[in-house]
Every structure is written in structure tokens, then in C-alpha cells.
């Protein structure tokens, strides 16, 4: 990993279309400004990780589960 030291107000340019500015430190946090093309997705790391994990888990079902759940739901609706 590339590690750089920046002061508030200074920035980093990545490629020719992403600009990151370190705005200020605030308590234990650091405020960051990001300029990137509108089609670039930007996530907080922990949220990205959570969605990633959830998608992985969601891909681990089997057909018996689906059958059973569907039956349970159809039964409920017809009551």
C-alpha cells in the first residue's frame, strides 16, 4: 500500500479523473472530499464489506429451501 502524509487542505490525484482532498480532522475522524466522475461508485468501506458479505451468503441457498419457503408463503396467502 502506498502511504502518504498530507496536511489539511492538501490532496491526492488518482489517474486523471479522481481527486481526493483532506479537509480537516474532526475529533477522531478525518473529513475527506472526493471528486470523481458521476459513474464511479463510492462506498464507505464497512458498508461495501457488509453488502459483499450479504451477497455471498445470499448465494448459498439450495433448492429445497426455496421449495419449502415458497410452500409456506403460498399456504399463508391462501389462508
Amino acid at each position, binding site marked *: 500500500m502506498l502511504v502518504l502524509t498530507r496536511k489539511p487542505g492538501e490532496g491526492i490525484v488518482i489517474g486523471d479523473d479522481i481527486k481526493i482532498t483532506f479537509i480537516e480532522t474532526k475529533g477522531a475522524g478525518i473529513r475527506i472530499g472526493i471528486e470523481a466522475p458521476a*459513474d464511479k461508485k463510492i462506498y464507505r468501506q464497512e458498508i461495501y464489506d457488509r453488502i*459483499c458479505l*450479504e*451477497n455471498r451468503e*445470499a*448465494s448459498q441457498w439450495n433448492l429445497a429451501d426455496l421449495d419449502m419457503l415458497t410452500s409456506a408463503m403460498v399456504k399463508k396467502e391462501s389462508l
Partner: protein
Amino acid sequence: MKKTIMTRFGEVEFDPNDTVRFVEGLVGFENLRDFIVMPNKKNGPLFWIQSVEDPEIAFVLTDPTNFFLDYKVIPNDRERSKLGIEKDDECHALAVVTVPADRKVTLNLMAPILFAPATNRAIQVVLENSQYKTRHPLPA
């Protein structure tokens, strides 16, 4: 021209023109772009999508308004452009269903899938600043 692939659920025949294209993949599965929509043999709110590229990967989806009546996601400009649709075009929000070992099903309302029927394209979006979570239990 129909094609067949071998999935972990057996052989699946599909028409390559009918697949849904995830233009950015799903979060964590960015390289899987084409999915087959599998009809559910029993009537019910759940259906599944099978990856064309990876036979191991399939997701169960549902229309969350079956369970959460007021759930609504409106695509922004970036999302509409990815889906290839205009402002008033039809766009459905679908939720990924997780079936944990205890079979207590949850819906991922934080990261819904937006599907545009006009273009057969889909994207997964993340609603970061909402009250929605990745694991909403079905209402009792």
C-alpha cells in the same frame, strides 16, 4: 438459439437474448454480468436468477413490496444511465433474499436490485443513508 449450462441445480436451458444484464455485476460479484431468470414452479413471491458465467452462483429475489408495502427506490441520473432508461421509464426494485441455516428469511433492503424491463438491464444500488438494513426479517 437456445443454450444450456450445467448449474448446481442441474441443467438449465435458456435463450441468450432473454438474460438480464447486470451492467456492473453485483457487489462482490462484479465480474458476473449475465443472469437467467428462473421461473418458480410454485406460485409465490420468490424467484431466482442464475449466473450464466458461474454455475455455482444464483440468487433468490423477491419484490419487497409483497412484504414492505411502502418500499420504493427511485433511480438517480447515474443509475438511469447505467440502466439505459429515461426519467419516466419503468424500473422495479427487487430485494436479494438470504436463507440462513435457521431458515429465518431476510431481505436485503439496503442494497436492492434495480431492474429496467425496457432494456433488460439491472444494477445493485446501496442505500447508504436510509433506515434500511441488509437483513430485514419478513414481517410476521
